[in-house]
C-alpha cells in the first residue's frame, strides 16, 4: 500500500477529495455516528406511524412492531460483534443455503395470495428471498474481492451467474420486486468493481434488445400492472384503484399533513395495505410533504454515510459490501416510494424500517450489523 494514498487520488473528483480529507482530520467515526443517528430517528418515526396504523388494526399490532424492532436491534448488535471470518469465509455457504432454500420453496413452499414465498419451519415462517438479499451480495463481494479488478468482461459472465440464479428463482415465486432488488444490488457491485463503460453500454444494448423476450416471461398480472401504469384509466377498480387511493392520500395531505391519526383514507378503509407496502401513503397523508421528505432525507443520509464508510474502508470486500448495503436501503426506499405515488408499477417491496413485518426489520438489522461490523474491523 502506498504511504500516502491521498496525494495520488487528488486527481479524483472534488467531493472525493473532501471526503478523504475528513478522514485525515481524524473524524473517521463521524459516518458511523451519523448512520446510527439516522437509524434511531427512522426507527422512532416508524414507531410513531405504526402506532397511527395500529389504531385501525388489532391490539397486538403495535406491540409486535416494537418487539420486532428490539429483536432487529439485538441482531444488529450481535452481527456487529462476530468474528470477520463469519462473513468472508462462510459467504459461499450462506449463498448455497440461500439457493437451496429457494429451490425448496418451489416444492414445499407455503402459498399465500398466489405466491409461494414462505417456508414453514415449526411455528416460524421464513422467506428465503429475504435471506438472499444479504447472502447474495456477501458472496458477490467475496468473489469480486478475489478477482482481478477493474472487472473484465470475461469475469463478468461468472459474476452474472451468481446473481441471475437467485434472481430467476425469486422471480418465479413470483416476487419480481425482491428479484429486482437482488439483481440490482449485484449489478451495482459489478459496476463498482470497475467494469468498463464500453462493456456496460454493450450489455445495456443486449438487455434492451431482449426486452420483448423478457415481457413474455412475466406473469399476466405483472404485465397488467405495467400496462395499468401506462394507462391508469384502463383499470379503474383493479390495480389502478390502489394507486389512485394512494395518490389521493398523498395529495390530500398537502404540505403539513392532516395530523397524526388524522388519515381519512385509512380511517374509512380506502387505502390498501396501509401498514405494510403502502405505509408511506399514510405517512404522507398524516405528516404531508414535510414528513415524507424528512424520511426520504434521513434514508438518503443513511445511504450516504454508509457510502462514505465504503470510501474509507481498506479492503475491497468491505467497500463492495458497504456499497451494496447502502444501495439496498436506497433501492428499497426508492422502489417503494415511487410505487406509492404511482411512478412505477405496484411491486411488493417494503419500505425499510417502516413497513410492518418481521423479515423487513430483520434484514435491516442484519444489514446495519454488517455495516457496523465492517466499520469496526476496518478501523480498529
Amino acid at each position, binding site marked *: 500500500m502506498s504511504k500516502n494514498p491521498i496525494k495520488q487520488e487528488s*486527481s479524483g473528483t472534488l467531493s472525493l477529495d473532501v471526503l478523504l480529507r475528513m478522514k485525515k482530520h481524524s473524524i473517521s467515526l463521524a459516518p458511523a455516528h451519523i448512520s446510527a443517528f439516522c437509524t434511531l430517528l427512522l426507527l422512532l418515526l416508524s414507531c410513531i406511524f405504526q402506532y397511527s396504523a395500529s389504531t385501525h388494526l388489532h391490539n397486538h399490532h403495535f406491540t409486535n412492531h416494537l418487539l420486532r424492532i428490539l429483536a432487529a436491534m439485538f441482531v444488529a448488535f450481535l452481527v456487529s460483534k462476530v468474528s470477520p471470518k463469519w462473513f468472508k469465509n462462510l459467504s459461499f455457504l450462506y449463498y448455497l443455503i440461500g439457493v437451496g432454500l429457494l429451490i425448496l420453496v418451489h416444492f414445499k413452499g407455503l402459498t399465500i395470495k398466489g405466491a409461494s414465498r414462505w417456508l414453514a419451519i415449526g411455528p416460524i415462517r421464513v422467506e428465503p428471498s429475504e435471506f438472499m438479499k444479504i447472502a447474495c451480495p456477501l458472496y458477490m463481494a467475496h468473489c469480486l474481492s478475489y478477482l482481478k479488478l477493474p472487472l473484465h468482461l470475461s469475469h463478468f459472465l461468472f459474476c452474472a451467474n451468481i446473481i441471475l440464479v437467485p434472481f430467476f428463482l425469486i422471480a418465479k415465486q413470483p416476487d419480481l420486486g425482491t428479484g429486482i432488488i437482488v439483481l440490482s444490488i449485484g449489478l451495482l457491485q459489478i459496476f*463498482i468493481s470497475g467494469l468498463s463503460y464500453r462493456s456496460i453500454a454493450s450489455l445495456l444494448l443486449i438487455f434492451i434488445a431482449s426486452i420483448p423476450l423478457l415481457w413474455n416471461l412475466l406473469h399476466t398480472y405483472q404485465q397488467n400492472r405495467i400496462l395499468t401504469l401506462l394507462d391508469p384509466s384502463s383499470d379503474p377498480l383493479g390495480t389502478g384503484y390502489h394507486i389512485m387511493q394512494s395518490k*389521493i392520500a398523498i395529495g390530500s395531505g398537502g404540505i403539513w399533513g392532516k395530523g397524526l391519526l388524522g388519515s381519512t383514507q385509512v380511517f374509512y378503509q380506502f387505502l390498501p395495505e396501509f401498514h405494510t407496502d403502502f405505509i408511506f401513503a399514510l405517512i404522507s397523508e398524516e405528516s404531508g410533504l414535510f414528513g415524507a421528505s424528512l424520511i426520504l432525507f434521513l434514508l438518503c443520509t443513511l445511504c450516504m454515510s454508509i457510502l462514505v464508510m465504503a470510501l474509507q474502508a481498506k479492503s475491497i470486500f468491505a467497500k463492495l459490501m458497504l456499497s451494496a448495503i447502502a444501495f439496498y436501503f436506497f433501492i428499497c426506499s*426508492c422502489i417503494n416510494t415511487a410505487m406509492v*405515488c404511482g411512478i412505477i408499477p405496484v411491486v411488493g417491496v417494503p419500505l425499510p424500517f417502516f413497513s410492518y413485518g418481521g423479515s423487513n426489520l430483520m434484514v435491516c438489522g442484519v444489514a446495519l450489523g454488517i455495516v457496523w461490523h465492517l466499520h469496526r474491523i476496518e478501523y480498529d
Partner: protein
Amino acid sequence: MIKLINTQKVIHQRIVISGLAIIGITFMIIWQYAGITINQNSYFLNLSNNNFKKSALITPPRGTIYDRNMNVLARGEYAHYLTLTKQNSIPFSLIQTSLSPHIKTDWEKLENEYNQALEGGEINLKDPLTQTEYTTLALNMWSLPNLRFNEALNRIYPFGPSAAHITGYTTTTDNKLIGKNGIELTFNEHLSGIPGWLKITKNAKGQVQAQSEIIPPITGMDIQLTIDANLQQAIYDIMSKYQGTAILVDTQTSEILAAVSLPSYDPNNPFESNETPRSFFNRLTHGLYPPASTVKPFIALEALEQKIIDRKTVIDDPGYYITPNSSQRYNDWLKHGHGKVDVHRAITFSCDTFFYQLAEKMGAYHLSHAMSQFGLGQKTLIELPSEKSGLVPSPSWKNMLGKKWYLGDTINIGIGQGATQVTPLQLAQAIVLLANHGQAKNIHLTKALKDQDNWHPRLVEEAAPISYSPENWTIIDHALLDVLQTGTGHRFKDNPHQIAGKTGTAQVVNIKNHSDDNLQSHDHSLFIGYAPSHKPEIAIVVILEHHPLAVSTANDIINIYFNEYRDPYVKKPH
C-alpha cells in the same frame, strides 16, 4: 502497486457516482411528491372528502288524505323490499335454493340480472314482500350474507277503486312518491312536504359510519276531503254494473259528498292490474256529455225572467215543430205530441216541441246566457287536475270556426243537443245553484289542510249569484217536483224523500269508438235533481252511458243516503 491504486481509484469513482445518483434520484422522488402535495392538493383533498362524505335527501312522509269523517283515503306505509348484492363467490343456484321456499318471483329473470351484475352490484327484487314473506325471511337471513332488506314508503288506498278518480294515485321515483292524478296531483306539493338533507359518512365498503341531519325535512300536509268514503263506496257498488258518473253534493255547503266515475282502477297498483286505459279516464272532469233535456229548467227560468213566456203561455204540441221560414221539421220524443202544453207541463213531461218554439223565440244569445249563468260550459274550478271546460255554443263561437249559425243550431241548443257539451261537475254546480235559488257556493272537494298541528279550513268562494224573481224559481221548483210525481220520473213517486229533478236522454250518434255494439245502440240517460224539494239538503247528478236507468239509480242513491249516511253526517260535522 500502481495498478492497485488505479483499481482503488476506479472503485472510489464508481462509489461517488453511485452516491450522486442516489442523491439525484431521492430529489426526483421528493420533487414528485411535492408536485402531488402542493400543486394537486386541492384536487386530491376534494377526492379524499368525496370518498367518504356523502349527502342524501331525507324524504318526509307524505301527508294523509282523509274523508269528511276522518277515514283514511290515502296513507303512506313502509314496505319491505329484498336486495341482493352480487358476490362472485356465491352462485345463483345457492340463492335460489335458499329463497325459493320463502318467496315467489321470476327466477329466470333474476338469474340473468344476477349473472350480469358486477361484483358488489345490487339487485332489487321488484315486488314488495308480504308480511309473511318478510317474517319468514327475516328469520332465515343468516343463511346468505349478501341479502339485505330495504324499506320504501308505499302509498295505500284503503278504499281502492271507489275513490280512485278523486284521490288519484302516486308513483315512486327516486324513493319519493309523486302524485299522478286527482287530489294527489293537485296537492302534490302540499302532500309531499319539503325534503331535508342528511350528511352521511361511508367507508370504502359503503357501510354507513355516521350520519347527521343538516336540514330537517318538513312533513307533508294532511288533507281532509268533503267526501264520505263509505257513501262513496256504497254508490260505487250501486253503479258498478254501469259506465258513467254520479255526484252527490250538499246543497247547504256545496261540499261534494260523493263523486263516482266508472270504470275505475285500483290506485294501490294502478299499472299492474288489468285496467284498460279507459279506466283512467275521469268522467267527472273530462267526460263531455250533451246535457239534453236537463237544460230545460234553466232555459225556462231565463225565458220567464225575460218575459218571453209566462206561466200561462200554452202551445199546442202535435209531436213536431216546423219552423216558419225554412219549413224544417223537428220531432218531439213523443210521436203524437203532448197536446196543450204550458211551461210546467213542458218541464214535467220534457216536451221538446215547447222548447223548440221557445228557443226560436229567445234566440241564441238568451239561450247561451241561460246556460252560462248556471256555470255550464265553464270550468267549475274543482280541485282536480286539467278539468275540461265543455261548450255552450253561440253564434260567435261558430263564426270563429268559420261556419254560419243556422236557426237549426238555436233550436238544437233549446233541448241541450247540438254542440252543447258539459261535464258532470258542471251539471252538479248548476243543480246546486238551482236548488238554492241562485245563491250557492262553488262545489268543492277539500274541507281542510293540516299544517304541522293545526287544521286550516278551506275558504270557499260564492258562485256568481243568479237573481231571478222568486215566483219564477217557484214555478220551476214545482215543475221539477212533478217530474217525479207525474212526469217522466213518475215511477219513483213513492220515494219518501221528495225528490225534485229533471231527466234527460242524450243521443250518442257521435260516439263511435265503442268496441261493444250493443252498448252503442243505447242513448245516455241523465238525471239532475235535489231532495227534499221544499228544503233541499242534497243535489244529485247521475249519468249512465248507454243505459236508460239514471232516474232509478238516482232514486237508489238518494234512498241509501237518507237511510244510512245522512244521520252520522249531520251528527258529526267537522
